[in-house]
């Protein structure tokens, strides 16, 4: 069996990977995480096991890359955060802020399932939990998210 041209994978899943990165990061960081994700995927692509779901694989990498960027940012001393263009105010900021307030497990489950589109079995695999636990974390996270965003939805 042969591999599809990688370009077709990018075209098919680019938007999905973007949602995962952008939900956790601001625009410039999300753009970095997006290309970090596809660059890592491109490197490993010829050796990828054929039975693996491509989207599950990509979403898992995207999540890890986004977390890497978040950790790099967190290590920066407060006050030395690089200057950025003033972020546009909008629902995306509300979403990122609300997601940031979720417990880590819930945030990961929401991002992987609702934004990455992974079924709970794959979310569970990525989180090292059972599918039931992943489903619970996701639905608790969504409830909390709607509550957090409800006030500013206007």
């Amino acid at each position, binding site marked *: 069996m042969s591999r599809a041209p990688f370009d077709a994978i990018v075209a098919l899943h*680019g938007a999905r990977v973007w949602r995962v990165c952008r939900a956790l990061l601001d625009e410039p960081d999300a*753009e970095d995480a997006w*290309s970090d994700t596809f*660059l890592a995927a*491109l490197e490993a692509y010829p050796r990828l096991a054929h039975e693996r779901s491509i989207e599950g694989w990509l979403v898992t990498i995207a999540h890890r890359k986004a977390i890497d960027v978040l950790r790099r940012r967190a290590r920066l001393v407060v006050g030395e955060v690089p200057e950025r263009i003033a972020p546009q105010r909008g629902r*995306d900021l509300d979403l990122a802020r609300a997601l940031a307030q979720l417990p880590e497990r819930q945030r990961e489950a929401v991002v992987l399932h*609702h934004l990455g589109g992974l079924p709970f079995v794959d979310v569970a695999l990525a989180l090292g939990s059972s599918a039931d636990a992943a489903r619970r974390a996701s639905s608790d996270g969504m409830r909390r*998210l709607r509550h957090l965003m409800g006030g500013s939805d206007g």
Partner: protein
Amino acid sequence: MAEPIDDIAAALPAPRLDALRATLAERAAASGLLDVAYRSLETELGSLLLASTPEGLVSVTFDGDHPDATLERLAVAVSPRVLEAPARLDDAARGLARLIDGRARRFEGRLDLSLARGFGRQVIEQLQRIPYGETRSYAQVAASIGSPRAVRAVGTACRRNPLPIAIPCHRVVRSDGQLGQYVGGVEAKRRLLGLESGAARGEREAEAMPE
């Protein structure tokens, strides 16, 4: 597969996918991970698809407006690390465009002949020796590589030339004077040969003119 919940996904600004893909192609090339770069090129002969490896231009096909089948073939024959990267093929595109509109007589730039193997490779290397403005018959090409009876196989090798235009398989015609087949269609072959013979004749006449 769960669909992303609309109100959550709608809260995110849409990605600038074209810009992201261009950046990815640049980073991939810089990291040595861009095994096959491709772009399309609109020409008088039709929409071309150009592909290159780090070695040079590896494939020219006449399907720039529907490239999927060729890209899948390249993914198998060369590497699945295939990305659209027009900037990496700017020089090759310019070189082909100059051949097609008669401003150049040979392709300037590196070629990667790895898609032609065995007998096919022998044939296309021979094709590179046919001078601009001239033609050879399939039988002559067969004889020139020491396989005079392999006339039909030469035809097949010409049809499978991975780099038409750059490697002039259009200069091989039938012994009876008919054009014979061409991977880009007979009309494209006629145009290329017409252009070349006109330019070559023009030059001979210019040389013959007294100063």
